[in-house]
């Protein structure tokens, strides 16, 4: 058995559960693609699953499709990505700061609450047939002749648990960074001040605030600065979504007790602005900054060379935070009632701020690799480079759709969800998280991954599958195929078939990774993460007789 410390053990637990959620989310994705290809293909499976659902519910294929479409992103983002981030940051932040997590007891709380919250949301879709999608456009989630009341209430409870849990995690992370267990301690406002780069701005104008500790220059690793700044987005995101969820929950409870509230009391456009402002903090905020932070950490570690342009990089992190606060209108380019100035400035021009910040981030990372030649192409480095490719591809697609003119024919099409969102999530963020796992597992366990062939299989199948799937569906989008629409007549089948093949490649690649991971750690060690060691100790094979 591998002997692991408490932190290492929790990190691996988070990682294993994150991978299980990735598998669940991917399975749902494959089911939906199959339904799009052949609308009645899942009839047999649906009949069996209906026996598990309460009451006499006999949902249609369409209802099942939209319920799955609602649960799928929650499992993918809050199950897979957030769980992986929790695990990685709970190890890396104390490791890099050389001080322990401030509230250790909150680590298992985060672990279980996230699982419970995600599974409640998933259950609201699977059992409760909640189908308002993750967008929750007002007043659909409170229109109970379209959305099941109990499903809506359950989903909001699950979402609230997730958001509160994220706030707890962020609190613990900030507390750890700010804790006074070593000389690197700062109060919250000093940290926030640095997170927004105020001392750097003052320096730009020839002034130096000697009293304000500048985290950048006090030796705080760039990764920690990125985590701190990204977590500002994380907190805003969780808070805003919590308020939206609470609003829907209040409407649900009033309806449950027979005195329904009037949906007209909430303005649909104002709600949409508020909701997207918060939701976009994930897509255009913490995801980008966390990813940049990971590249800033991993690339120098893997190449053995100092990060190229470190000063520019620190400014980039600051600018990216400001940009993330003001880009949400690119989700409202199709709303002609949204003021034109908002659509043009916030929707289009400020969104280009990410082109600069990510452009400079990727340039700094690539230059570091270039200047470090010859470099050893380790699995972690390979996946890090793959993730950069994903961000470039998804970023370009995003800039095309976040354009006042071009959005007219791209809005709400498969282009948006495939070429932009799934490329970002699967090729970009997914490969970045695999890069972290390929780097962290040997650090945590002192074990090297067993099979290079399986690593290469994982890499190529994942990147070819995810890019192929996104490209096929993106092209379908450019031909008018909508997202969030179940084509009952089986249109766009050719594109969908290519996407299914892409999904199969991703699945095989993922399987190769799992086989390699379990083969490296040993099944007993993986099980030991979740069950008491004494259970396994009793089943150890007897030592060989002399």
């Amino acid at each position, binding site marked *: 058995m591998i002997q692991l410390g408490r932190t290492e053990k929790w990190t691996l637990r988070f990682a294993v559960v994150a991978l299980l959620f990735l598998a669940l989310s991917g399975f749902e994705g494959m089911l939906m693609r199959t339904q799009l290809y052949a609308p009645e293909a899942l009839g047999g499976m649906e009949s069996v699953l209906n026996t598990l659902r309460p009451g006499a519910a006999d949902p249609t294929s369409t209802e099942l499709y939209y319920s799955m479409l609602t649960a799928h992103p929650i499992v993918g983002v809050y199950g897979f990505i957030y769980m992986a981030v929790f695990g990685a940051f709970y190890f890396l932040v104390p490791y890099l700061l050389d001080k322990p997590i401030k509230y250790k007891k909150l680590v298992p709380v985060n672990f279980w609450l996230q699982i419970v919250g995600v599974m409640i949301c998933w259950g609201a879709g699977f059992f409760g047939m909640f189908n308002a999608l993750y967008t929750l456009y007002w007043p*659909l989630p409170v229109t109970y002749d*379209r959305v099941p009341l109990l499903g809506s209430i359950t989903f909001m409870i699950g979402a609230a648990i997730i958001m509160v849990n994220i706030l707890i995690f962020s609190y613990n992370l900030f507390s750890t960074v700010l804790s006074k267990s070593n000389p690197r301690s700062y109060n919250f406002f000093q940290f926030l001040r640095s997170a927004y780069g105020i001392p750097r701005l003052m320096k730009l104008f020839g002034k130096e605030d000697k009293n304000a500790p500048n985290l950048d220059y006090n030796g705080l690793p760039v990764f920690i600065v990125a985590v701190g700044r990204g977590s500002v987005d994380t907190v805003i995101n969780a808070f805003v979504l919590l308020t939206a969820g609470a609003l829907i929950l209040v409407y649900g409870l009033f309806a449950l007790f027979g005195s329904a509230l009037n949906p007209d009391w909430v303005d649909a*456009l104002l709600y949409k602005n508020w909701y997207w402002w918060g939701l976009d903090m994930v897509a255009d905020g913490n995801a980008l900054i966390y990813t940049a932070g990971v590249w800033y950490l991993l690339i120098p570690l893997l190449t053995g060379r100092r990060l190229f*342009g470190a000063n520019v990089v620190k400014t980039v992190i600051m600018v990216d935070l400001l940009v993330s606060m003001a880009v949400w209108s690119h989700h409202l380019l199709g*709303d*002609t009632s949204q003021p034109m100035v908002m659509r043009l400035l916030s929707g289009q021009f400020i969104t280009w701020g990410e082109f600069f910040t990510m452009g400079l981030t990727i340039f700094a990372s690539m230059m570091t690799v270039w200047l470090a030649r010859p470099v050893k192409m380790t699995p972690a480095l390979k996946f890090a480079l793959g993730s950069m490719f994903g961000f470039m591809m998804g970023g370009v697609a995003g800039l095309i759709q976040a354009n006042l*003119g071009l959005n007219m024919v791209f809005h709400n099409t498969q282009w948006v969800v495939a070429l932009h969102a799934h490329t970002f999530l699967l090729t970009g963020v997914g490969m970045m998280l695999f890069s972290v796992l390929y780097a962290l597992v040997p650090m945590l366990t002192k074990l090297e991954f067993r099979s290079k062939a399986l690593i290469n299989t994982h890499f190529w199948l994942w990147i070819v599958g995810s890019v192929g799937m996104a490209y096929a569906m993106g092209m379908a989008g450019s031909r*008018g195929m909508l997202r*969030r629409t179940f084509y009952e007549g089986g249109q766009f089948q050719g594109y969908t078939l290519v996407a299914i093949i892409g999904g199969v490649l991703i699945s095989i690649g993922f399987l190769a990774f799992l086989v390699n991971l379990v083969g490296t750690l040993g099944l007993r060690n993986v099980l030991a993460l979740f069950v008491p060691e004494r259970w396994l100790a009793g089943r150890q094979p007897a030592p060989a007789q002399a």
Partner: protein
Amino acid sequence: MDSRERNWLFFLIGVFLVFNVVTLTPVVPWQEWLFWTDPTPAHRFSIEYQDYEIRLPPEGIEVQVGEYVEFVAVSADVTYGFGVFRPDSTMVFQMQVLPGRDNSIVWKFDTPGTYDVRSTEYSGPRHSEMYVQNAIHVTQ
């Protein structure tokens, strides 16, 4: 800043300028009337959305190639979308239809033919049914 970084930054600025300038000009045809001019539409068509139904004007929608027409869509319940599609399923244009708002867009068709209307925003499990074939007739 390193000179290589500076050059890269200039390159990024160049891409930003070229892309945004080009896509704001009538190289993207509809930018001419959506962004630069404010043409007076020859016709105004009101479309009502309620209970998964797209209610077009009873007299139908007849448009001539090259004339400006305005579509005003209102929703009595939830958010929908107003999308116009060619018979081969490719999209001509679209807008969101928010409840409590007059959602309007001016358009100029350049090709005669019949066009379909589909709701482009999810509005509940019956959303896929919101599809009206041959809803708009454009003549020469």
